[in-house]
């Protein structure tokens, strides 16, 4: 009995770790041949947003390059804990990966610390524009305000109640620039519209995010938008209430509720990843900044499949896209 006493909790913990590990990284090593890329992501690859956008891009690049024999791809997801992420980066670099992507602006300090120890490995991090002046660090970012502006134009034309709700976790990074662009798009179309914003302070509290969306709806909003991983809660609420529309960002969120997702700004990292691989193979290991824009097809507006968008709204959106591309419209003043 005494023996059980000690082993029982340990056993449980081991079970837990086992369960965690099974869903975790699937790194494989092979001596030489394929180009090897590792990605460290804060949330799950199925988050319908930020991490998923990078995961899908990697899969697409891999398919384009000719499968696993040409591009080997390993990833660690759910790395909310920054020290864990730093350890994972160091592991991948030690295993000889050619490019280690730290997919989160919170990982900057970790990249700064790890990169100098592995001069032959390229590191990339985003979303940010700072390469720390290191020769083997790339930075990448998304001009999220561009799609935000386009979504804002459409939202302003579609709202009946003249009230729009924004839900988000924390007011930083591309979450903030998206919303700033969105506000400007709305204001440029109809300055009389009220925009309410709530921040839940948590990237994972779906219940509170859902209630925030309910609060907006109760406060009169008939259109919702927002950024980040836990935005699915808001869509759930909007779906339940009926008659409330949603604009997405980071990934195409139409599948969650086809009938109410008007449009999503989609991040397409394929071009950025391909560029970085090409630079590495050409001997440039870092020092450059990549930005997703409408103009370089890194950002796309995906119109909802189950929602019939009025033609005038669609043409206004296309006009806004063209204006942003040619520089006549500035999403952020």
């Amino acid at each position, binding site marked *: 009995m005494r023996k059980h006493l000690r082993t029982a909790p340990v056993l449980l913990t081991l079970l837990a770790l086992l369960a*965690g590990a099974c869903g975790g990284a699937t790194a494989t090593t092979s001596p030489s041949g394929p180009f090897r890329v590792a990605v460290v992501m804060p949330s799950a690859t*199925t988050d319908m947003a930020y991490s998923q956008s990078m995961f899908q891009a990697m899969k697409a690049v891999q398919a384009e390059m000719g499968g696993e024999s040409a591009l080997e791809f390993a990833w660690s997801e759910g790395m909310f804990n920054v020290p864990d992420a730093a350890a994972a980066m160091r592991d991948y670099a030690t295993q000889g990966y050619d490019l280690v992507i730290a997919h989160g602006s919170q990982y900057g300090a970790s990249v700064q610390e790890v990169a100098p120890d592995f001069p032959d490995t390229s590191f990339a991090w985003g979303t940010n524009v700072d390469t720390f002046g290191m020769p083997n660090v790339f930075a990448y970012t998304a001009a999220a305000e561009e799609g935000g502006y386009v979504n804002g134009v459409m939202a302003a034309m579609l709202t009946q109640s003249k009230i729009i709700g924004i839900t988000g976790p924390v007011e930083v990074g591309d979450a903030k620039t998206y919303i700033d662009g969105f506000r400007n798009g709305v204001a440029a179309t109809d300055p009389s519209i009220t925009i309410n*914003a709530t921040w839940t302070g948590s990237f994972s509290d779906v219940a509170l995010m859902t*209630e925030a969306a309910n609060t907006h709806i109760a*406060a009169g909003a008939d259109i919702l938008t927002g950024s980040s991983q836990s935005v699915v809660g808001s869509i759930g609420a909007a779906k339940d209430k009926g008659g409330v529309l949603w604009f997405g960002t980071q990934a195409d969120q139409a599948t*969650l509720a086809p009938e109410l997702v008007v449009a999503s700004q989609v991040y397409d990292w394929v071009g950025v990843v391909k560029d970085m691989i090409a630079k590495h193979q050409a001997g440039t290991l870092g020092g450059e900044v990549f930005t997703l824009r409408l103009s370089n097809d890194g950002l796309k507006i995906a119109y909802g499949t189950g929602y019939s968008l009025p033609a005038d709204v669609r043409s206004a959106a296309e006009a806004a896209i063209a204006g942003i591309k040619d520089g006549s419209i500035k999403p952020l003043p």
Partner: protein
Amino acid sequence: MAELFTLPVLLGIAFSGIRLATPYLYAALGETFAQRSGVLNLGVDGIMLMGAFSAFFVALNTGSLWLGLAAAAVVGLLMGLLMALVSITFKAEQGISGIGLYMFGLGLSSLLFRTTVGTVKTISGFQPVKLPLLGDLPILGDIFFRHSLLVYGAFLAVPLAWFILERTTWGLKIRAVGQQPAAADSLGVNVTAVRYACTGLGGVLAGIAGASLSIALTNLFQENLTSGQGFIAVALVYFGGWRPLGVLGGALLFSFVNAFQLWMQVLVPEMEADIAVMLPYLLTIAALAVAVNRTRQPAALAKPFERGEA
């Protein structure tokens, strides 16, 4: 600030607060039973996650919300009995085994979600049911009687739990076993059986708490859906002084302040969101510091029972 105290806003706060309180109520009432019998189960959050996933998975694949709810209850029971086995039969340190159970639930629910569902999907959950007559009451009807069945269930569970604990012979055994197991044992009460039953019941209610999240309130599942609500529920048990009514008060306070701060963000944009978000936690800490009366704590909480060790 004044616009916060208009009738529609207060109604909205009350309505949201009641919804938000639902998972806390189920989980904390279940934990109340476990703790009153002397078992500290810190794994509530892990059980909630498994309950949330089971309910979502079954509802998604069978289309039956009731089957989903039953699945959550069964999975919760099994998790509760696992905790009972480790902490009562094997007499493991309960604080540690509870954390182990939490990690187990977190890891397993994530793994199962990825392998069986894969991506975030939404379902149509329990819909609000307007109660006949009561739902037509002005004001009160809007706040209290237009919720989903699981919300009503949580609030009905409060007097039921009180009745069981304070008015039944089984409740008397629970209270005795959590306070002075040797005394109960000396009167022929089966201490082990009572503790197993209470920990199992706690598991069932934690499973239902998870289900209330995934198939009634948010209508989806994602990894770590609860984001620590189970731990708040454990804190609410302390806050409520191990009494169902106290737990109700704590759950409502926490949820109403949360609902209030969301409305504050909408209506008082000049207020920093960071400060608003902190409100419920600040208030909880303050209330815990003031309200928690340790003398109500079951004296045998987290202590394994060994016959003859008086």
